[in-house]
């Protein structure tokens, strides 16, 4: 993927499996979000192929427009700067996520306009699904509040709930732990592993918070300057010299700032 003269993601190949949490890490500007935007169709890579093995067949994501990637290939995502529908309620946010199914049930709005039973049932099912995720993410008490009025941590959770309401096969999370306090990010860890184990979606995760990354990832891909510099299970990544170099420069490990070494040792403990 190239922007003018800048090659943001270059010659990158990796695989993310279902029922697994794959983390993508790398220094700022490594091309992580650009990669996400290519996968979810917001950018179109100039060369290369992104294939998704969907239950209904292989989807070539680089050929689909963004909204069809979400609907047909089952790729859902969250955003680095949260993108909710701020003036709509929490519940409405989740209902909008089920637009495609509800639209089909409302038959070009006609069945809905006439208030046919068929549409009412579909709407009830949609509300049930929303309720399920609100319960899971501990948002049920705020269901009728404006999404924009929620505290930051709840907005992050709501964005995940909204993505899950689209019934994805691949869930792409762009820095879900950013701005969360330690307790919240611990809860996030539990939630993500639970989502993986219960629904079997593949989770693709961009994250800087190493406690999250090292704690829950099954597989880690490290990017720098748009290239993959390492790939493997967390234990291997932690020891990889190329990764240490990318993050810390050429300096030796003893120069680690205390926060980082703290992060690393905490991650070791998990």
């Amino acid at each position: 993927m190239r922007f003018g003269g800048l090659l943001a993601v270059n010659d990158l190949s990796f695989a993310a499996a279902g029922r697994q949490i794959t983390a993508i890490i790398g220094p700022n500007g490594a091309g992580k979000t650009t990669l996400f935007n290519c996968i979810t169709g917001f950018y179109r890579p100039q060369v290369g192929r992104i294939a998704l093995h969907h239950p209904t067949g292989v989807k070539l994501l680089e050929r689909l427009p963004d909204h069809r990637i979400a609907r047909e290939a089952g790729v859902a995502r969250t955003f680095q700067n949260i993108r909710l529908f701020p003036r709509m309620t929490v519940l409405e946010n989740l209902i909008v996520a089920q637009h495609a199914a509800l639209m089909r049930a409302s038959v070009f709005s006609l069945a809905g306009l006439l208030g046919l039973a068929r549409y009412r049932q579909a709407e009830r099912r949609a509300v049930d699904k929303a309720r399920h995720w609100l319960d899971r993410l501990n948002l049920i008490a705020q269901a009728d509040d404006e999404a924009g009025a929620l505290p930051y941590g709840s907005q992050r959770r709501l964005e995940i709930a909204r993505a899950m309401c689209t019934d994805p096969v691949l869930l792409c999370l762009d820095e879900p732990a950013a701005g969360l306090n330690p307790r919240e990010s611990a809860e996030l860890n539990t939630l993500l592993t639970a989502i993986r184990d219960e629904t079997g979606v593949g989770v693709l995760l961009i994250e800087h918070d190493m406690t999250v990354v090292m704690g829950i990832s099954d597989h880690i891909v490290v990017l720098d300057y748009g290239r993959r510099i390492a790939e493997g299970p967390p234990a291997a990544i932690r020891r990889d010299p190329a990764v240490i170099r990318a993050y810390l420069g050429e300096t030796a490990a003893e120069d680690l700032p205390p926060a980082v070494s703290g992060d690393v040792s905490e991650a070791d403990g998990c």
Partner: protein
Amino acid sequence: MATAPADPAPPLKDAVIDAALAGLVAAALALPMLGFHLEDGTTSLTLSPHLPRVGLAALVVAGGRLGLTLARRGLAARRAGRPGRLARLGGRLSGTRLWVGWAMLLFAAVLPLLPFADRNLIDKATMVLIYVMLGWGLNVVVGLAGLLDLGFVAFYAVGAYSYALLAHYFGLSFWACLPLAGLLAAAFGLTLGFPVLRLRGDYLAIVTLGFGEIVRVVLVNWGDLTGGPNGLGGIPRPTLFGLRFAAYAPPGHHTFAQFFGLRFSPEHRIVFLYFLILILASVTNLVTLRLRRLPIGRAWEALREDEIACRSLGLNPTTVKLSAFATGAMCAGFAGSFFATRQGFISPESFTFMESAVILAIVVLGGMGSQIGVVLAALLLVGLPEWFRELQQYRMLAFGAALVLIMLWRPSGLLSGRAPTIRLGERT
């Protein structure tokens, strides 16, 4: 004005100086326009000075400014920290919206029976209702979907001309043309919308404005079809299940008065038209309210909130926008064909940018997305000026000034605040 309570009360001396400055500025502003009048002389233009008027303007402005400052000081002292009365009224109104809506509908339904309802009043009420309907239509586009449309009048014109032309060339009746006009306007909306809806906010605004003007220019210049600037006359009036509202009916037909054994009165038609637009507008209201609670309506609002998030959830922004555009256009089409049948005559003059501006002002003033707000704004912007028709020129000046003042007073509209389309109702 919004900061009034926070202002510390200025001493009197400052207030006077401030007022004097305001007067000076006003004098300078008034000097060329009020101070001189261009007279059309016999051979060329001449100037006649009216300098005292400049002084008068300066005095009025200075006095007004001083009065305002003093009044504001008094008010600020009295109600520091309390929310404005109107803000509270707005809150209460939006809380009991449903009740207010039914009351308004009931009042509208019995209006023609009330003792003070003369022909003139009903006529004006009909006019207001046309704008209410147009406002509700545009509300879908601007208020819900967040698409700024400055050329809404184009669809109104398409509706009006479709009826006029279909009736003229094919002899179709109003009832056959009404749905056709709506569909044609919607189709027109789709064709226009398809290329331009990819554009963002203000580009869309200017392109729709352009389209509105193009439609008008075509209407003016395509004389063979549209009658050009002279317009089309003799547009057939609507019937009630075949009953005519006229003094006499051609053989084989009945008039309304004959059928019910009444004495013919021209007022019958006026009242009939009033009820017709009341029903049309109510249906528009019902349908748009309903649509808002359907997936398509939620998609409109979601699109207004965040287009990128919509795309990530599998909503196709183009179809969502097009559906909003077409729905709004259809409402305008219906309203347009009603307008044509009510007037019996249409010309491009009825479809200028001013109309688009008025309809948009009704929507924004009403509070973007508020159905009752649209009614209030239409009463204020269309109903009120109708009473001052005699003061033609001052009327428009006051209209413009009112737009500015109301916007300054309530920037988010008379009734802002939105009701959720669905509730879980499990509050703890």
